[in-house]
């Protein structure tokens, strides 16, 4: 597979760290001089640009949290002149005031570079055709992929999200080689193709970059089989740049973090202490070369760990493990902490169960939390015996109990009865009024 930016992605540790330190110092200087919010924050923390003499000094800097991004909406975190801006993106704002990413020409250049790296990891080269099923608009997904594919010189089908029949028609008629969309939508496309009598395996589609929502290894297996492609996990967030922060190479063993532009740390979400490599915690990211909206130690709320072992692909960048959960997705059921990803892992171990599941949390007549896990029954696990179905239900129940320590009601539901989203899959329905 091609490596887009060999100098950056295969740099030696020493060279990379020197670059990171210089860029970190520049970023702290920049926000201290230009963003009143950061100047006050740094002053309060007793830190200033001179505090950074080595990379470890980053721990002297205060964290930035999502609420602060909302409080400073729309332009409060701008570290450049408004006249230098060339593009603005925001989050959807479904959970509150949207967060803003503002890009200068240099920021877009950086974005194109990291997205070219991302698409290259999925084997995309000039001459390939990218069907970009991420939404175009204020959302970063559509234009992020667009900028990266332009940089590579690939042919772009800017179809945006939704309109499944048209997606299938475009895919077939224009010979898409790469697909970019949410992982759940890729499966929805595969199911729809089947229903329309289109054999995806016959099409030239080779690989896909899937992100914007958490997914599992089991889902990868299913996507790869149903679409006949190589499926790559990609990571990013509006706050930092959009997609392009990290992505999987062909080894699919963690996502290579573009650490020359984004500095990752893992912290204990409760104490804020920096954790050693390999330990699970909250991912914190500092942008190292942004001009528009650089962030210091942004708390992503994503749970993962850092992997520094060398990767067979030849890149030397640190990798993050597939996301293990969100600090804010943490479900507390009868006082037990659990993440939806743990439930997914259990379902994954049970042969034949689909990654299509939904978790409903409610308080019953007893006022105790009750959790129902709805699992779709596919043909592979369907038995004509009620005893067969009951033993499947018991097995899921028992494995969940041993993994999570809670007893869930397992409801077997018909295939395709759990709503498929065209964006982020809604896994949890919390009906508790607390």
């Amino acid at each position, binding site marked *: 597979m091609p490596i887009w930016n060999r100098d950056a992605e295969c740099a030696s540790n020493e060279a990379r760290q020197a670059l990171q330190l210089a860029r970190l110092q520049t970023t702290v200087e920049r926000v201290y001089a230009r963003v009143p919010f950061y100047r006050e924050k740094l002053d309060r923390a007793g830190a200033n640009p001179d505090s950074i003499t080595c990379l470890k000094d980053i721990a002297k800097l205060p964290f930035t949290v999502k609420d602060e991004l909302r409080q400073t909406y729309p332009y409060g975190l701008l570290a450049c002149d408004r006249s230098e801006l060339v593009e603005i993106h925001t989050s959807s704002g479904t959970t509150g005031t949207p967060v803003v990413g503002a890009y200068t020409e240099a920021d877009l250049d950086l974005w194109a570079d990291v997205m070219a790296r991302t698409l290259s990891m999925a084997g995309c080269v000039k001459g390939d055709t990218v069907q970009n099923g991420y939404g175009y608009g204020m959302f970063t997904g559509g234009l992020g992929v667009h900028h990266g594919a332009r940089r590579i010189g690939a042919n772009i089908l800017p179809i945006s999200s939704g309109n499944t029949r048209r997606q299938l028609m475009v895919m077939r008629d224009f010979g898409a080689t790469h697909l970019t969309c949410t992982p759940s939508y890729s499966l929805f496309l595969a199911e729809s193709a089947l229903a329309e009598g289109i054999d995806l395996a016959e099409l030239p589609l080779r690989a896909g970059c899937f992100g914007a929502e958490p997914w599992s290894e089991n889902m990868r297996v299913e996507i790869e089989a149903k679409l006949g492609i190589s499926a790559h996990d990609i990571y990013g967030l509006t706050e930092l740049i959009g997609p392009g922060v990290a992505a999987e190479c062909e080894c699919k063993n963690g996502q290579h973090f573009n650490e020359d532009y984004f500095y990752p740390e893992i912290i204990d979400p409760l104490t804020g202490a920096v954790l050693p490599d390999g330990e699970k915690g909250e991912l914190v990211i500092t942008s190292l070369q942004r001009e528009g909206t650089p962030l210091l130690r942004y708390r992503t709320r994503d749970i993962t760990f850092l992997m520094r072992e060398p990767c067979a692909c030849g890149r030397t960048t640190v990798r993050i493990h597939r996301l293990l959960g969100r600090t804010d997705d943490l479900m507390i059921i009868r006082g037990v902490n659990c993440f939806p990803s743990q439930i997914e892992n259990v379902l994954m171990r049970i042969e034949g169960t689909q990654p299509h599941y939904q978790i409903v949390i409610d308080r019953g007549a007893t006022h105790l939390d009750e959790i129902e896990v709805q699992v779709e*029954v596919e043909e592979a696990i369907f038995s004509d015996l*009620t005893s067969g179905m009951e033993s499947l239900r018991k097995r899921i129940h028992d494995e969940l109990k041993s993994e999570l320590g809670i007893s869930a009601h397992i409801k077997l539901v018909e295939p395709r009865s759990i709503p498929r989203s065209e964006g982020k899959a809604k896994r949890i329905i919390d009906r508790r009024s607390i």
Partner: protein
Amino acid sequence: MIIKQISIFMENTTGRLADVTALLAKSGINLRAISIADTADFGILRMVADQPDAAVALLKAAGFAARETDVIAVEVPDQPGALARIMALFRDEGVNIEYLYASLEHSADQAVIVLKVDDVAAGLAMLEKNGFVTVPSF
């Protein structure tokens, strides 16, 4: 003879059976035997139809988890003790009956019972050896 039974996974919701039967009716598929095993959350609909392969293909295309299961359909004289004799045979031969139901097939003096057993070949051989008539198809 082995008969192909169609089994479908169904959620226990109002109107689901109406969906299935309407689908089959539209394609002119005739049902010859039908039974439901129900639990609190779901049911398993079992039926024998005149075109089992077509029926299963149709149901799958409509999104149901459906499969074919090998069953035996045996003629039972319509008189007291007839079913008891067959049950005793299965007991004595150690062939386990997982479930059974009566079909809509009938004549003046014969009923037809659909049997799902753990060893279909053994069950068939035993019935035939003892002079019972198994139905080749519906």
